[in-house]
């Protein structure tokens, strides 16, 4: 994105040449070239927004501008209404539409491009996160492919219906009763419907077959294309020869069934994993840097060692370095997974991507942004993802076995009949019926139908499959690696016990309501009464203080709240003390609670013979304690993101199929490296994007439930393949011997497809049983 120089300092307006503070263009007077720029710039300053979208706006033919942005956090009708009403309340907005399926917001407005930032800021103000739609082209390609498939299904379905109508007439009466002229009419009408359909609806198969053949390989689409093309060519020749049987309906029906399977498959695949690029967007914003003593905003990418950046409270720290001015608390959870913010003062090391919470600080940049730990994590994820992409799906394995066998049978049939001395047309006819009847209708549906049913079932329980083969990979998992914070535990501290009265608690909650610290939030959340409005001061690393009725009330660490007796011992960070005039009054104790059903789930997993591991960035004692409570077999604590990834790689080397369950950015490389990965929906977007499966709720049960469903659906898929093989054992001899008429082909094809679909539905029956 283009660099925007939004100046924060007042001294800037004295420069000789007047340039707009927002867009950098020339302006006649003042700081901004137009009122739009002024409003946008102010909106950005207020929100401390680091990205500007107006440069992405498209100029439409009618002079309006259009912007399409990805929105996060749309859940219900109210969200749609809120966003659409907020934007359309502006007079200049001519069109606004939220697309819930793709999570996109599209709006058009009259006036300046820059106005788009103001409008975007309005949406951000409502609490929805906006970002530039990343790599829209890839999304569009997937979408176009799905649309093409849907159109092809519509056309082939229409043709298959009408052809069947005509074919039933052909099958039900003998040619003598019907008359040869009528039969020929029906044959040619069939050809008229079928041939354009095959050309149109067969494209997805033909294109992929040609692409694969060019590489000297083969896939399922090659036999499909050959069968369809040969069947239609042969039917044309039969129609011209005034023969008895044409196979137009078989060819079109084949396409129709296969397209359904293909479409379901495409839907299940969903959005491609794009985690690494999303993560990089953390580094795509701008940072406020002192250049020659003047504060300027430059893109984070252009930061180099030796610069000094100003990081406002609530802003992400843009680079690895150390603090040179100020004192604050830093939320490290993005990198280390630690729940509690760490106190940071002059000299403390900072990491790119971590969040500055309490007060503004100045950071001396030590490394250029492409050498930061965050960039290293991104690169590691890219490497790990490439490794994971090598998995070969079951259906593809089946296809590679299927193709040579069927073509061999076809060829043998042709040669065999020629050897018996029949006309070559008849020999070819029989060979082609072998190809038609064995054509992988059942194989094409075997996987997608099970997958659609399974993912629908999981979705009802709040489990989202993000990649098409996630279930298949999950089914063969034998080792599960858990992250601790946020995965086995709820991920935020809860008030569990302490010594306090309800007046103390109200006072504490009143103080706490003014702070973003997790412990403050926990106290405030657990207090159900009203809070007093106080003028509260937040002191980084210490706590909160306020004047209440002339008395100094403090809520914070033990030492700071005047407990002089125990000052020598280190503060237990999971407690807060309340003091009035330096006398400790009450103590609140917190703990990051283990998910309520974690113990049961772990026990069930052990029963299935699955090995469990705990990987934590936290301290060893805490990790060991959790592992002991939950009976986890292997523990490794104080691990960095890089260690976690290496740990998974080592397990993989020992031949384990690893499921990684984690929620932090520090888990992201490990998630990408694992055979298959899950993350709770409370996880960061980036982590959710990396994971194959995302589950909702406070429970850990989905991990176990999904595993069971995966194993079950894998069993059904294999059964379906078995059924397809059995069907072919009966069908191939009939076809080879030349007994297969178009009617038998039609019955056999739809019959086998129905059997496979019916078998897939057993997934629901099994679920319903207790």
């Amino acid at each position, binding site marked *: 994105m283009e660099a925007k120089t939004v100046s924060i300092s007042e001294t800037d307006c004295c420069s000789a040449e007047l340039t707009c503070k927002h867009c950098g263009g020339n302006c006649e007077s003042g700081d901004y070239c137009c009122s739009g720029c002024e409003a946008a710039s102010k909106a950005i300053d207020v929100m401390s927004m680091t990205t500007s979208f107006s440069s992405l706006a498209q100029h439409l033919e009618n002079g309006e501008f259009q912007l399409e942005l990805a929105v996060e956090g749309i859940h219900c*009708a109210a969200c*749609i*209404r809120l966003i659409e009403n907020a934007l359309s309340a502006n007079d200049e907005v001519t069109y606004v539409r939220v*697309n819930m*399926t*793709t999570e996109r917001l599209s709006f058009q407005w009259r006036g300046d491009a820059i106005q788009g930032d103001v409008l975007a800021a309005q949406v951000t103000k409502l609490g929805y996160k906006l970002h530039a739609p990343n790599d829209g082209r890839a999304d569009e390609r997937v979408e176009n492919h799905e649309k093409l498939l*849907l159109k092809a299904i519509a056309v082939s379905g229409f043709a298959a219906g*009408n052809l069947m*109508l005509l074919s039933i007439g052909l099958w039900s009466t003998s040619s003598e009763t019907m008359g040869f002229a009528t039969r020929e009419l029906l044959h040619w009408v069939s050809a008229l419907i079928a041939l354009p359909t095959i050309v149109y609806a067969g494209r997805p198969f033909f294109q992929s077959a040609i692409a694969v053949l060019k590489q000297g390989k083969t896939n399922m689409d090659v036999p499909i294309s050959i069968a369809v093309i040969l069947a239609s060519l042969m039917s044309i020749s039969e129609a011209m020869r005034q023969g008895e049987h044409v196979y137009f309906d078989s060819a079109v029906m084949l396409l129709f069934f296969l397209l359904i399977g293909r479409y379901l498959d495409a839907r299940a695949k969903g959005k491609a994993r794009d985690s690494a690029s999303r993560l990089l967007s953390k580094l795509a914003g701008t940072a406020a840097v002192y250049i020659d003593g003047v504060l300027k905003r430059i893109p984070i990418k252009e930061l180099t060692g030796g610069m000094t950046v100003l990081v406002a409270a609530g802003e992400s720290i843009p680079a690895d370095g150390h603090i040179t001015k100020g004192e604050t608390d830093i939320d490290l959870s993005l990198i280390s997974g630690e729940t509690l913010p760490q106190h940071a003062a002059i000299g403390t090391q900072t990491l790119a991507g971590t969040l500055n919470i309490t007060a503004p600080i100045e950071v001396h940049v030590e490394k250029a942004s492409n050498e930061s730990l965050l960039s290293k994590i991104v690169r590691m994820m890219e490497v790990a993802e490439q490794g994971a992409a090598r998995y070969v799906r079951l259906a593809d394995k089946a296809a590679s076995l299927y193709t040579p066998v069927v073509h061999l049978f076809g060829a043998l049939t042709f040669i065999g009949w020629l050897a018996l001395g029949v006309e070559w047309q008849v020999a070819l006819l029989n060979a082609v019926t072998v190809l038609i009847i064995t054509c992988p209708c059942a194989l094409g549906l075997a996987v997608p139908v099970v997958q659609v049913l399974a993912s629908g079932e999981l979705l009802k329980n709040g489990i989202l499959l993000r990649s098409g083969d996630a279930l298949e990979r999950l089914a063969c998992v034998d080792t599960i690696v858990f992250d601790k914070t946020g995965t086995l535990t709820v991920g935020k501290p809860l008030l569990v016990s302490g010594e306090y009265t309800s007046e103390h608690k109200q006072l504490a909650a009143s103080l706490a309501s003014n702070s973003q610290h997790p412990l403050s939030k926990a106290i405030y959340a657990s207090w159900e009464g009203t809070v007093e409005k106080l003028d509260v001061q937040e002191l980084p690393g210490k706590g909160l203080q306020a004047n209440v009725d002339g008395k100094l009330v403090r809520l914070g660490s033990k030492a700071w709240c005047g407990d002089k007796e125990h000052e020598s011992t280190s503060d237990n960070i999971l407690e807060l003390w309340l003091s009035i005039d330096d006398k400790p009054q009450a103590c609140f104790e917190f703990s990051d609670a283990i998910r309520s059903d974690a113990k049961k789930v772990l026990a069930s997993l052990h029963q299935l013979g699955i090995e469990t591991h705990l990987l934590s960035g936290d301290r060893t004692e805490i990790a060991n304690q959790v592992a002991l409570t939950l009976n986890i077999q292997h523990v490794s604590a104080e691990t960095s993101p890089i260690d976690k990834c290496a740990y998974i790689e080592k397990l993989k080397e020992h031949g384990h199929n690893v499921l990684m369950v984690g929620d932090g950015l520090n888990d992201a490389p490990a998630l990408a490296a694992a055979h298959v990965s899950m993350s709770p929906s409370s996880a960061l977007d980036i982590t959710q994007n990396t994971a194959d499966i995302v589950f909702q709720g406070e429970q850990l049960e989905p991990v176990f439930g999904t595993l069971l469903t995966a194993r079950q659906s894998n069993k059904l898929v294999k059964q379906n393949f078995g059924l397809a093989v059995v069907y072919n054992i009966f069908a191939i001899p009939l076809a080879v011997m030349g007994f297969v008429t178009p009617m038998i082909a039609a019955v056999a094809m739809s019959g086998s497809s129905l059997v496979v679909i019916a078998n897939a539905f057993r997934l629901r029956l099994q679920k319903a049983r207790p």
Partner: protein
Amino acid sequence: MSVLLYLIPIALMLGVLGLGAFLWAMKNGQYDDLDGAAHRILLDDDED
């Protein structure tokens, strides 16, 4: 059997009509946001 000369074209015409309607709906974006459509039915703040 001459009735076929009317019936087949009529049957095809009706089929093409349905197909055309579907393709039009798709091109018109009726299937773009199925989740959103399901929720929008709950909104009742028509201004007119």
